[in-house]
């Protein structure tokens, strides 16, 4: 179960490395991100905003909006980690990502109580992500015209895949439509980068206003 996921992660890391080179990031910037941020969606989203002078506030806001989800994920793990001392609880969630979280939670619901699967899975994915980034950086720099090979759409396809492939529910159609429309209008008429926050908040609000039964039982 872990091995295919690690192979995928190497490929994603590679895609990130190539996209980062194409976006003009220095090698060390991309490596630092993969080493320490270790979160594909926010790293790809950051690439999109990586034009000097860096929009620090917008960058922070976008990262925050993406990562509030991780807050829900670690909250779902709380019953499992409850018995550990606080410092170990914190250490266990350093390498928490969408994929190893989903896997670990499935094992937990099946009765598994060994936390090794959470920590070990995290370490394996982290290694794969960092290695993939390094390969992508090394290999992406040698390509003269990245558009001709479609390398510039990696980031877009990745983010799109995360959104619609992760958990396609019909109930999310309206919130996403509202997010897309409001983001586009904000993109045209508001100061730069505000469109991301506008879309996020409108999407969240529409989801709250819709009838609860549309959503059914959510895992998060």
């Amino acid at each position, binding site marked *: 179960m872990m091995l295919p996921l690690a192979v995928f992660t190497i490929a994603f890391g590679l895609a990130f490395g190539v996209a980062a080179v194409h976006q003009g990031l220095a090698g060390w910037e991309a490596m630092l991100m993969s080493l320490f941020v270790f979160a594909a969606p926010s790293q790809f989203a950051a690439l999109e905003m990586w034009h000097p002078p*860096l929009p*620090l506030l917008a960058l922070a806001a976008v990262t925050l*909006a993406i990562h509030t989800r991780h807050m829900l994920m670690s909250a779902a793990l709380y019953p499992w980690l409850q018995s550990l001392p606080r410092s170990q609880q914190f250490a266990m969630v350093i390498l928490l990502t969408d994929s190893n979280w989903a896997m670990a939670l499935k094992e937990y619901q099946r009765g598994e109580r060994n936390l090794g699967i959470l920590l070990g899975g995290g370490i394996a994915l982290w290694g794969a992500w960092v290695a993939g980034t390094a390969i992508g950086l090394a290999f992406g720099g040698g390509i003269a015209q990245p*558009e001709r090979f479609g390398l510039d759409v990696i980031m877009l396809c990745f983010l799109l895949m995360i959104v619609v*492939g992760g958990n396609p529910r019909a109930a999310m159609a309206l919130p*996403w439509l509202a997010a897309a429309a409001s983001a586009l209008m904000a993109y045209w008429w508001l100061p730069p980068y505000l469109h991301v926050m506008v879309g*996020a908040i409108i*999407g969240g609000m529409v989801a709250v206003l819709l009838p609860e039964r549309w959503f059914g039982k959510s895992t998060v």
Partner: protein
Amino acid sequence: MNFSPVWQSLIAIILMVVIAYGSRVLGLLIMARVPLGPRVRRFIDAMSSSVLIAVITPIIVHGDGGVRIAAIAAGTVAIILRSPLVSIALGMFCAAGWRWLFTI
């Protein structure tokens, strides 16, 4: 705000690290005190996918034909086949193909 580019990058990355790790820890801290209600969960869940929608919509709308066809292909594959790598690969292939056909 007169940082050199290197410092800007470092600050940006440190910000991202703090937020990324902070949100993981915050979930534990909040649960230790008060469980989140279903409405709050739904808001956060929808917000974290909507933020990505908001990032990609202008790219698609203002992109060239290659970008748009890549988005359609990648999105369709992601929904139907649910295979992430095929989705990205086909998106790249479509963009490259489009540009090969329609530029120069």
